[in-house]
C-alpha cells in the first residue's frame, strides 16, 4: 500500500506531482514507465487516457496531474497549503493552472515540431501566453503570493523547457518576459523544485531525440 507514482522522468506533468509530494514531505515509490511499452499497472490504473502521471494511494489510482496535485493538497492537509482557504482565492489559482494546462504544452509542442509560418505563429502565441502569466504574477514572489502555491507547481516544470523553445524557435524568454525568468529562479531555490527539474540542456537533448523521431529538421 502507501503511495506509488507512475511517471516518466522528463514529463512536466509528472514533475508537478513530484514537486507537490516533496513540498508535503510525502514518501512514495517512484516508478519510471516506458511509454513505448506501457506497464499493465499503468493501463489498468488509467484505462481512459493510458497516460502518466498516475498516483496510486493505498491501491486507489488518481489521474490527471492537476487533479492529483489538488488531491495531495486535500489529503495531506498541512502546510504548505497549495491552495488558500478562501473560495475566491481558490478559484483564481485553479483558473490560471487550468490556463497553463490548456496553453503551454500544446503551444510548446508546436514550437519544436513545426517550421516556417506555423512555428512563427506558435512563437507569437507562446510569448503572449508568457506575458499574460507575467501580468498575473505582477510583483508577487510567487503566483501564490508570499507562499509557493498551485499555479507555481503547475507552471514551474515548463521552465526547464524554455531553453528548448528558445533554441527551436529563435527567441529569448528573458528578453520577452524577464519577470517569469526571475520567478523561475526563485522557484529553483526551493528543494522540491531543485531536486525535480532537469537541466534544460538535458531536456533539449530529449527534444532533439523527439524531433528526429518525428522527422523534424
Amino acid at each position, binding site marked *: 500500500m502507501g503511495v506509488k507514482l507512475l511517471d516518466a522522468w522528463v514529463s512536466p506533468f509528472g514533475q508537478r506531482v513530484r514537486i507537490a509530494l516533496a513540498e508535503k514531505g510525502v514518501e512514495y515509490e517512484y516508478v519510471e514507465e516506458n511509454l513505448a511499452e506501457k506497464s499493465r499497472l499503468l493501463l489498468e490504473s488509467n484505462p*481512459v487516457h493510458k497516460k502518466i502521471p498516475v498516483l496510486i494511494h493505498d491501491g486507489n489510482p488518481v489521474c*490527471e496531474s492537476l487533479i492529483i496535485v489538488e*488531491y495531495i493538497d*486535500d489529503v495531506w492537509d498541512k502546510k504548505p497549503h497549495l491552495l488558500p482557504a478562501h473560495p475566491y482565492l*481558490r478559484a483564481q489559482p485553479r483558473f490560471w493552472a487550468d*490556463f497553463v494546462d490548456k496553453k503551454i504544452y500544446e503551444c510548446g509542442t508546436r514550437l519544436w515540431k513545426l517550421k516556417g509560418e506555423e512555428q512563427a505563429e506558435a512563437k507569437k502565441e507562446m510569448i503572449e501566453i508568457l506575458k*499574460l502569466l507575467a501580468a498575473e504574477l505582477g510583483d508577487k514572489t510567487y503566483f501564490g503570493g508570499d507562499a509557493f502555491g498551485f499555479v507555481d507547481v503547475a507552471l514551474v516544470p515548463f521552465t526547464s523547457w524554455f531553453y528548448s523553445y528558445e533554441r527551436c524557435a529563435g527567441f529569448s524568454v528573458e528578453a520577452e518576459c524577464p519577470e517569469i525568468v526571475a520567478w523561475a529562479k526563485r522557484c529553483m531555490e526551493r528543494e522540491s523544485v531543485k531536486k525535480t527539474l532537469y537541466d534544460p540542456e538535458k531536456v533539449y537533448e530529449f527534444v532533439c531525440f523527439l524531433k528526429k523521431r518525428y522527422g523534424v529538421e
Partner: protein
Amino acid sequence: MAASGEEVKLLGVWPSPYVIKVKIALELKGVRYEYLEQEIWENKSELLLKSNPVYKKVPVLIHNDRPVCESAIILQYIDEVWAGARPSILPSDPYERAIARFWAGYFEDTWFYGAIKILQVKTEKEKAEAIEQSFAGLSLLEETYEKSFKGKPFFGGDNIGYLDIALGSFLGWVKTIEKMSGLKLIDGAKFPLLATWAERFCSVATVKEHIPKTDKMIEYCSKVLQPKWHALNN
C-alpha cells in the same frame, strides 16, 4: 440563500451545456441570481470582455463584481461559497472528489468533443469513427457506474452532485446529436445504468427547466452552428 447585499450575475448562452451546469448548481444551492443572455459570435458585451478577458467565453459568474470563469471552477466556487446550503455539490472525501473531477473533465474535454464530431464530419468513415469513439467512452462510464456507483440513484449518492451535473448538463446535446444523426447514443440495451440514470437526472426538479427542448436545440444547431462548422472546414 444569497445574503442581502450579495449580487450574483451569470453571463451565459442558453444552448451551452457549460452554462446549464452553473444554472443547475445555483438552483441547487438556492442562490438568487440575475441571468444575462450574451452574444457570443459578434458584438460581445463590454461586461463579458471585461469579466473574461483571457477567453472571452461564457459562462462567467460575477459575484459581488468579482468574476469567476470556467464552468468546473465556477461549480467548485459555488459549492465552497454557499457551503452552508445543503446538499454539497462535491463529495466530502478527497478520493471521491478526485474521481468526480476526473470523469467530469473527461466527459466535457474529451467525450463531448468526440460526440459532436458525429454532426461535424463530412465522410461516412469519419462519422463511423466518431460513433465508435463515443460508444467506447460511454462503455467506460457504464463500467465506472457499475463498479463505483451501483445501487445509488446518482453519482452523487441520494442527491445529484458534481459529476451528475457535469455529465447531465450535456444530455440536451446528446439527445440533439441522437435525433440529428438517427443514432441512439445512451442506448438502454448497451448502457442500462447510464440510460436509467439519464432519465432520473432529467426528471429532477432543479434540473428539468434548464435542459433546453430538443427541437429548439436542433434548430439552433442547424441554423447557427452547422453553417459555422462548414465555414471552418472549407
